[in-house]
C-alpha cells in the first residue's frame, strides 16, 4: 500500500508515492537521494538523522512519511547556497567541529535550530540544545566553539 505524500524539501516541492509508515529518513535517502541525512541508531537517540520540519528539529528516523505530509523540510543539503557554505558550516570547518563527519549534518541542523531560538546562546544553552546529537569524536568542545563563533559572526552582521 502506498500513499501520495507531498513534501517541500529545501524549497523544492516533491510528490511521491511511498508506504505511509516508511521512515522519513529513508524517504529522504532512498526516494530523494539526499544522503547527507545519516542513520546512527534508528531509535531517536543519536540525532545523526536530524532535520528541520516546519522549523522544528526532528529525528527523521522516528517520523513516518505520512506524518511529514505537507511539511517543509530542511536537510543539510539545503543550508549551503550555490556551493557557498552557510556560516554554521564555515565555523564547524574552521574550528574543528567536524571530525569523522557522520554526526555533522545533524549537529549543524541542531545548531541552526539552537541559534534560531537563542541568537547569542550561553554555554549551558548550547550544551542543552545539542544534547540530542551524539558525537563520539570531538568531546563536543570544538563544536561548542564553532557554535559560539557562528553566533559572534552573525551578531557582528
Amino acid at each position: 500500500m502506498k500513499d501520495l505524500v507531498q513534501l517541500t524539501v529545501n524549497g523544492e516541492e516533491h510528490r511521491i508515492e511511498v508506504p505511509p509508515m516508511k521512515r522519513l529518513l529513508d524517504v529522504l535517502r532512498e526516494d530523494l537521494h539526499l544522503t547527507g541525512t545519516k542513520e546512527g541508531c534508528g531509535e531517536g537517540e543519536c540525532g545523526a538523522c536530524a532535520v528541520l520540519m516546519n522549523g522544528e528539529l526532528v529525528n527523521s528516523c522516528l517520523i513516518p512519511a505520512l506524518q511529514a505530509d505537507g511539511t517543509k523540510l530542511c536537510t543539510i543539503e539545503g543550508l549551503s547556497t550555490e556551493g557557498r557554505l552557510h556560516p554554521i558550516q564555515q565555523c564547524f570547518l574552521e574550528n574543528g567541529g567536524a571530525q569523522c563527519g557522520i554526526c555533522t549534518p545533524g549537529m549543524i541542523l541542531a545548531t541552526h535550530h539552537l541559534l534560531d531560538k537563542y541568537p547569542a546562546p550561553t554555554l549551558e544553552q548550547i550544551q542543552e540544545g545539542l544534547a540530542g546529537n551524539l558525537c563520539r569524536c570531538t568531546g563536543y568542545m570544538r563544536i561548542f566553539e564553532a557554535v559560539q563563533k557562528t553566533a559572534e559572526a552573525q551578531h557582528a552582521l
Partner: protein
Amino acid sequence: MAERDNIVGTSPLRKEGRAKVLGKATYVDDLSLPGMWHGATVRSTIARGRIRAIHFAPEVDWSQYAIVRASDIPGENTIVHLTKDHPCLAAQEVNHPEEPILLLAHREKVALLAGVAGVQIEYDELPCVFTIEESEQAVANNDVERIVWEGSDFGGTANCFKQYLLYSGEASETEDGLAAAFEAADYIVEGEYHTGAQEQLYIEPNGVIAECEKDEQGNVVSVCVQGSMQCPYYLVHALTLVFNLPEEKCRVIQTETGGAFGGKEDFPSVIGSHAALLAMKCGHPVKMVYDRAEDMAATTKRHPSRTRHRTAVSKDGKLLACEIEIALDGGAYATLSPVVLSRATIHAPGPYKWPFVRVRAKAMATNLPPHGAFRGFGAPQSLFALERHMDKVARVVRLTPEELRRRNFLTTGDRTATGQLLNEPVDMQHLLARALEESDYYAKLARFGEENRGSAIKRGMGIAAFMHGSGFTGSGERRLNSVVQVELLPDGRPQVLVSSTEFGQGTNTILCQVAAQTLQIPYEQVVIAQPDTQLVPNSGPTVASRTAMIVGKLVERASTHLLDTLRSESNLPLNHAPEEFTKAALGYLAKHGSLRCSVRYEPVKPVEWNDELFHGDAYPAYAWAVYVAEVAVDLNTYGASVTRFDALQEVGRIMHPVLAKGQIEGGVAQAIGYALYEKCVWKDGRMMNNQMTNYIMPTSADLPAIHVHFEEVPCVHGPSGAKGIGELPMDGPAPAILNAIESATGLSFDTIPLLPEDIFEKVNGFTDTEHGGSGELDPDRLGEFPPEVNA
C-alpha cells in the same frame, strides 16, 4: 627552512572537511551499485554448543534468497588475525552468542528480516565460562568441559590466548631483588582493580559493499570490497584466505569512515568477508550495513580486565619493587588479544622508576563475543590500575598523591621497566608542576575542603600520570615494513599515496601538511589519494598512535625524495616559489611521463627488542602526560560528575593545534564515559543493553570544560618532531576521576564503570570487597582530607 614555509604547526582546514560539513562526504551506506542486493547474518542464539540442525521455515520463499554456509567458503574458513582459530562462519560449533552461522542476501532489504527470522537452529548446548575467574577456575580444576579454547599455532594454552612475563632485569636477579625489596620494605601495599568492557560506539555502524567476479566455470577470479574501515590491507589478507586468491585479486577500498576508535581495525575482516561470500553466491554486488543493535551485540569491545598490584615502598615514599598481575577477558577467539595484552603489560609499571618489576599477564578465553581493538589497546586498563594504586600507596605512606609521584618519576637517562634507555628528554616533574598550576589544584583542594563540610555535594581533585608508546611495539614496525609513495599528478600537484585511513583523527590533513612543508608548496596544492589497495602501497594499519610519527616520517622522506629528483632532474631552484614547483613538475612529466617516489620504513634510531624476554626498546618514543580531574559527588543522588578537566601532555611537536586539541578532548570524553557512564550489561555472554537508549555515552550536557595543554618537545622519530597522540587521552582520565572521587568523599573505588548505584551501595554499606573496594567507610570522614593533603 624559512619561517614563512612552516605549515606543520598551523591549522589549515581539514582536507575532507568541506565535504563533511556540506553532507556530501560519501559513507558506505550512501553508495548504491547497479543491481545491488542486501546481506544479513544469521547468528547464534546461545553462547556455546554444537549445531544439531538448521531448519528453514516453509512460509519463506527461499528461492529468492542467496544462502551462504561454512561449506560454501572456497578457501579457508577463517578470519585470520595472529592465528586462524576464528572461523568466518561457524560450521559445527558456536563459541559465543551472536556468532555468525549463515549469511543471507536478497534484492530487497526488508525481506531480510523475515529471512533471518525464518532460520531456526537447534543446538546441543555445552558448558560455558563467562568471566576471567570462571575461565581460570576451569583450568585450575582441569574441568575439560569448560576448556573453551585449546591453544593455537600462535601459542597459548587451555583457555589462555597468551601469557607474558616481564622482568625489569635478568629473571633470577630480579626475583632475588623482588624478594629482598619486599623483605626490607616499610610498607607493602596491595590492590585489585577492575575495568569493564567498553563499546567503541562510532556513530556510523560497520558496513561494506562487496563485488565478486567469476570465470565461466563459476570460479571466483577476484573480489572487491569497499567500506568503513581502518586497515584496508588487513581485509585484503583476510580475503586472500577466505577465497584462496592472491593479494592482487582482493581489492579493498576505504570509503569515508564515520568513526572507528579501533572498532574498525579487525572487525571489517569479518563483515567484509561475509559480504564478499554473499556477492559470490548471488552474483550481484551485496551491501551489508549493521543496524545499531547488531553492531553493538556482535562486534568487538574493549577487553574487561582485572589487575592486581603488590608494591614494596619505603616510609619516605620510595618505590622499591612491584609485582603486577594482569588478566584480560579476550572473549571466544584470540583475535588481537595477544597484542592488546602486550601493550597492557608494557604500560603497567607506568612512568615510574622501579628498582625491581615483575609483570605477569594473561588473556583468558570466555564465551563472550571476541573483544578487540579500542583506542588505548590495553593501556587504559593497566594504567587505571596503576594510577589508582599509586594513590593508595600515597595514603599508606602518608604522602600526598602528587608528592609520591614526584619522588618516583622516570627522567631522562633512566631505564623503563623493559630496560629501554630514555635518551630523549623526559620531564614528568615539570608536567606535574604545570598540571597542578593549570588546574589551580592546591587552591581548589583547600576550598573544597572547606565547602565539603556540611554539604551533600562533595568535591575533589584527582591526578593521573602516565605515558603511551607511539607506534607498533618492539620489532613490530620492522615487521610491518611500511611503504609510502608520493607521486605527481598530471597537473603537477603532488599526491600522497598511503593506506593510512582518515576516520576523523585528521590523517589526510596532517600527512598533506608534512608533504606540503617538505615540498615547500601550499597545503592546498597537495592531494591525498583515497585508500584503494589497487592504487596505494601498504603503509601499515591505522592504529597504535603510529600515523603521525611513523607514516608522517615516511611521507616526509618520500617528499624529500621527490623534491631532490625535481631539483636534480628538472631544474627546480632552491627556495622555490610554488609556481616554480609546478613548472618543474610539469617539465619532469613532459620528459619522463610520470614520477612516483617510494620509501620503506627505516628506524630513525636502532630499536633493540627481544620478543622472547619481552625486553628492550618497547616503542620508538612515548607521549607523556599528567591529567587532573575535578569532580562533584552528590550524596543525595549518588551521581558523580566531572566538573572540570585539565589534560597536559608532551606529544612532541604539535602538527595541527586544532586537530590535536580535538584528539585530546575527544579521548578525554570517551574516557569520562569509560569511568562513569558506559556499562556493558552481560547475561550468559550476551550484551543486554545493545542500544544507545540504555548504553549511555556522554552527551554535550554531561561533559565539563576540557582544558588541553601541550608541552612541545620535538622528537627525532616523527616528521618535524611529532609523536603519536591519538590513544594517550584514553589512558589517564578514568584513574584521575576515581582519585578525585576519593579525594571528595574518602570512598575508595577500584572498579569502572562507576555508576551512581555503586556509590549508593558503598555509602550504604553494601561494599563488594571482592572487587577491590577498600571497605573502610567512615561516614564522619566523608569529604574531609587527610591532613597531609593540605600541607
